[in-house]
């Protein structure tokens, strides 16, 4: 087991925050408020989560675990929709599908076939692995969707010219779709390629600190990286296909009302 961090040590961690705040002051970065809010949120959220998870892991009830997973899915969905400045009313369900389907599919494959768990709804695996998949896919979805929507808005004339040349919606957007999928999964490919050399990934570090032997930890890491890669590409693909469906009107024009006014 890892050594516990005492409350006094946590205060020492807070002291470290003075460094970014000093930068903020001298360089006038205008991120002071943001930093303080973000750090406070992190502390509060993690304390609460630590508290909840302790009970969830102890109780380890299938329905409670699944409920927790559902909450994580919804929070991820809202986060993707907000980060892309989209209307939740229009994009909520499509994004939930793009987040939920790949995560559930890969998660159960992972727990059932790869780890061969007796109980595939076991809290530790369901919530911890699910969380890792979600955290990664969140990033990929935000990058990919933003990339796509910005491109389409910026090059609308090209898109319309293609429609006029006889392309259907998908043909006219093919180049943009490809680019967005690439933008979304490239970071994962790059991090797979440098794994172990540049950084010891969080999961491995965690397992090693938790007392697992490095030989086992690396195998988990391999499996989780592939799982992340697969969920990410599945998710951005579904998200883009759904965007083609709900983001364009009956005349194949990009709907302006899907964006939130800032």
């Amino acid at each position: 087991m890892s050594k516990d961090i005492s409350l006094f040590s946590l205060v020492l961690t807070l002291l470290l925050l003075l460094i970014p705040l000093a930068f903020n002051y001298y360089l006038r970065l205008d991120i002071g408020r943001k930093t303080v809010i973000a750090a406070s949120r992190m502390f509060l959220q993690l304390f609460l989560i630590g508290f909840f998870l302790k009970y969830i892991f102890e109780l380890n009830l299938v329905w409670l675990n699944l409920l927790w997973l559902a909450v994580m899915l919804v929070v991820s969905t809202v986060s993707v929709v907000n980060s892309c400045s989209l209307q939740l009313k229009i994009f909520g369900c499509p994004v939930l599908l793009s987040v939920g389907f790949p995560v559930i599919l890969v998660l159960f494959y992972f727990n059932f076939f790869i780890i061969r768990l007796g109980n595939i709804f076991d809290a530790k695996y369901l919530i911890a692995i699910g969380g890792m998949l979600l955290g990664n896919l969140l990033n990929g979805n935000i990058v990919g969707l933003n990339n796509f929507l910005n491109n389409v808005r910026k090059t609308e004339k090209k898109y319309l010219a293609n429609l006029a040349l006889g392309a259907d919606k998908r043909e006219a957007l093919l180049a943009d779709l490809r680019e967005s999928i690439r933008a979304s999964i490239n970071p994962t490919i790059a991090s797979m390629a440098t794994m172990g050399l540049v950084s010891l990934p969080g999961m491995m570090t965690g397992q090693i600190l938790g007392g697992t032997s490095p030989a086992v930890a690396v195998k988990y890491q391999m499996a989780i990286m592939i799982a992340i890669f697969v969920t990410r590409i599945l998710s951005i693909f579904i998200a883009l296909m759904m965007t083609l469906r709900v983001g364009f009107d009956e005349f194949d024009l990009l709907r302006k009302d899907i964006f939130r006014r800032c």
Partner: protein
Amino acid sequence: MIELKNIRLGFKDKLIFNNFNYIIRKGDKILLNGPSGTGKTTFFRLLLGFSRPEEGEIFFDQRKLEINTVREIRRRIGYLSQEAEIPPGKASEVIKIIFNYKWNREIKMNEEKLFFLLDYFSLGQDILPKDIESLSGGERQRLLLIILLLLERDIYLLDEPTSALDEELKHKVKDYFLNIPETVLVISHDKTWEDESGMKILNWAETGEE
């Protein structure tokens, strides 16, 4: 025949079309004349279904432009935008891609016509292996005009089709499009299009802001 009935469309606080009515007959050659920023390009966008009027209707041969007809109607239109947008890639490949687009698959690409037009518009066949991005504005305009003609559309909407061409080529483009049986609408500030009969002139400032 294209009929625009009681069209109303505005942007922000500026009304571009108010109770606008106009009829375009088959085979008409029309020059849209008027200062920039008065909605000439918007007029093309309306016909293509790229802008939708707040009020009023547009009919192509009695068929209303709406959800069920818009794709079919777009397929009848050859549109040259001001920027002469062509998908990227090698010219010959791009032509193939365009003929493979969903709404063009039934159209047979007429190679003889391609070579004839390349020659007529002084491009020559050696443009085919070139990259679209490496073409000059004038070359792109002519290549796109050729592609539109190969797609055998019924209606041509040409937004500044000769802006990057020299005098001789301007006349060639004009002569060609005035002598085909299809409907042709042109937006141009080039005097070339004005100085002869054979074209109806739609004077914008008067018509658009009625």
